[in-house]
């Protein structure tokens, strides 16, 4: 069984498919990552250094911002990654995205 799974080429984290012990060397294509600390099965490990405030990318999409300096091979979880969504504690939410297509011809009444 594989040790980790990288879902998208754009990702800067991988998912551990079994518990990773510190010191283990992970070969991922052309790059190698040394596990820095224990990472439980199902949790994320940094594939490269991620700086404070930088997005953490999984599924090819941002899943939040790093709240601390994350070295390659570190465990990425609630201690160093935080959501940017639904955060009433942070003040105004981001403005709604514009619709992608041109103005609608809405077929329904009153909607």
């Amino acid at each position, binding site marked *: *069984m*594989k040790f980790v*799974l990288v*879902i998208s080429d754009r990702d800067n984290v991988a*998912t*551990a*498919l079994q518990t990773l012990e510190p010191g283990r060397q992970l070969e991922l294509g052309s790059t190698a990552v040394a596990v820095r600390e224990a990472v*439980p*099965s*199902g*949790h*994320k490990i940094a594939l490269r250094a991620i700086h404070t405030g930088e997005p953490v990318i*999984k*599924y090819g*999409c*941002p*899943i*939040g911002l790093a709240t601390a300096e994350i070295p390659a091979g570190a465990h*990425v*979880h*609630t201690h160093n*990654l*935080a*959501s*940017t*969504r*639904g*955060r*009433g*504690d*942070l*003040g*105004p*939410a981001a403005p*709604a*995205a514009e*619709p*992608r*297509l*041109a*103005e*609608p*011809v*809405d*077929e329904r009444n009153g*909607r």
Partner: protein
Amino acid sequence: MAADPSAVDLLSSGRPSFLGYRRPDGRIGTRNYVLVVPTVICSSVVAERIAAAVPSHGAALPHLAGCGQLGPDMRVTHETLGAYCAHPNVGAVLVVALGCEQVVAQMLAEMAKRHGKPADIVAIQSEGGTIKATEKGIRIASGFAERLAADARERCDVSELVLSLKCGGSDYTSGLASNPTLGRVTDRLVDLGGTAVLGEIAEIMGAEHLLASRATRPSTATELIQIITRVETEARALGLDIRGTQPSPGNIRGGLTTIEEKSLGATHKGGERAPLEDVVGYAAPITRKGLTVMDTPGLDVESVTGMVGGGAQVVVFTTGLGTPTGNPIAPVIKVTGNARTARQMADNIDLDVSGIMDDSETLDAAADRLFEEVLAVASGRQTSAERLGHREFAIHRRNPTI
């Protein structure tokens, strides 16, 4: 209703099919219940006893609402109960009223009749109490069950299916195995002209751009963004951080850190290409083929209650950590990608797709199995939740009880 035909049966046209109950309104049922609907919490026990006395077909809809509710909540209660009375998995309706409540028993019975079903009402106050109302209700429900026993399933095209997509108790396997498996089934079903519905607005947050880009009308993309913004705005107005509940403590133990991460995994249920055709309110009718998003909360039972109300005849519920819940009138198929959960909660799991995690099964092979399971269950095969008597039902409410 124990038919269990081969799911690979095809129509003469070579298309996948299932055996369902064709209703007078043209819709197709996958089950054939006598629905015993209490108008209000006060008549819920009588309704449950009546349904239990007619085990062949009885299904009760006990709930906590029906009185003391303000405008919008009252409307949602009425609409949800009405939607269940109209639902194609229901062949006949008995409304159990108290007599002084807000929900109007006649409206529910009329809704059933408009959809061509036999319907009747017993009211506890006018019948003279629990015992008399229960006795009369059992007589009426037994008569309905006798009529329904004569109904036969017939072969129906797969495009008649409305599939509810649900995940709960998610862990890292959900986004990697069970949800992508379900997503492939969604894409296939929609390619064949069928319908799928995705709820749980908070669990689209962070992945809405993926769904909005598949909207067939700009107004649909706008509506999706608007309801997600509403959920975020509500959290902001309360000064609250949804991280207390999204992801849940169990999700976090399972390795999910943020709502964006959970949403990106959860949204896989909606497939990769199925066009987003509509956005509808809680328990509102799903009228367009293709993918619909329904405005439901993330709470499992409220979410499934709403999507079944919208017309889903089968629910596929993926889980990582394992969860037992079902629905009173729709079969709920439990799928897990977590091998430990598949072993430990074997009673509750219908399909184990954990082979995807160790590369012993491909996503496509797992999707083949799930698609066959959906057709077999639609044709009458019982799910774990049905065998275990899981019939959870909860109407979403947003405001205080007065």
